[in-house]
């Protein structure tokens, strides 16, 4: 393992991470909900399970949360925060496959990086911890295969 020092951005990672943690803490302290993006988004989509805790009354805050996320680049644009580039390493058919897998996997596995990785681990959930270790391990293995065994062209 060699650390890519020029790419490593500990300062902005620290500040951004604190903001993400603050958002998760603020949501649960204010309205008692987990800031898990796949859960919030997936439960707004067709076919979402009915009968979850007050699913009727849950739509409003979920929609507002997603709108907040979508407004973030606009806020960044009018403030001093530059939007970083979005550099993908694969062609669009791979992005479609990746999107399908992420959509299916996060709903089947009941969470993503925010719900399991941040909120789950932060509240000592074994499900959150094991899910995070699992998707990290599969992510690492996938990048190893694509970047070092197959070398998918950009």
């Amino acid at each position, binding site marked *: 393992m060699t650390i890519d020092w020029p*790419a490593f951005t500990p300062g*902005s990672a620290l500040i951004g991470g604190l903001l993400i943690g*603050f958002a998760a*803490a603020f949501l649960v302290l204010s309205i008692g909900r987990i800031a898990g993006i796949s859960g919030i988004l997936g439960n707004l989509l067709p076919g979402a399970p009915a009968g979850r805790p007050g699913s009727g009354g849950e739509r409003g805050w979920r929609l507002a949360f997603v709108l907040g996320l979508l407004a973030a680049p606009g806020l960044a644009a009018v403030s001093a925060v530059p939007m970083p580039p979005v550099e*993908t390493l694969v062609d669009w058919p791979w992005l479609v496959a990746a*999107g399908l897998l*992420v959509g299916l996997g996060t709903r089947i*596995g009941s969470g993503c990086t925010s719900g399991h990785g941040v909120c789950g681990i932060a509240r000592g959930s074994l499900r959150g911890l094991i899910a995070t270790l699992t998707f990290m391990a599969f992510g690492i293995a996938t990048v190893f295969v694509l970047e070092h065994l197959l070398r998918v062209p950009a």
Partner: protein
Amino acid sequence: MKAIAAFLCGLTLGVGLIVSQMTNPAKVIGFLDITGRWDPSLGVVMGSALLVAAAGFAWVERRGRPMLSGDLALPPRWPVDGRLLGGAALFGVGWGIGGFCPGPALVATAGLSIDAAIFTAAMLFGMAVANRLVEGASAARRAFSREPSDSAQ
């Protein structure tokens, strides 16, 4: 009131993803590429997020209820089952291919990235399909099980 709090949380989380550059898939792939040139930034993001989030969860659990609404709706911490592991594995493979997870994909789409929009469209479709699969499976389990407690949580 609840909607305003949720909007501000989404906004703060989105700005956090932008500041930490997690909306750039190349940064995420750089973290997952531990055998190549490794970029530890995502680890720092998660670590610092966890510190603050853990304090928030400890506070609200001691308090017993949140400040703006009556109920605290937290998912079960246990058990680890095949559905959790299988879903996380599928997610990990997709994350490794594209370098996007759901939050950064939404934020980068709102930042007018075509690649992020393509990924997000496929992700939303995948989520809707999974909604039906999971509901179908639990309905079938309910039908074949004498114990209605199976899907109670």
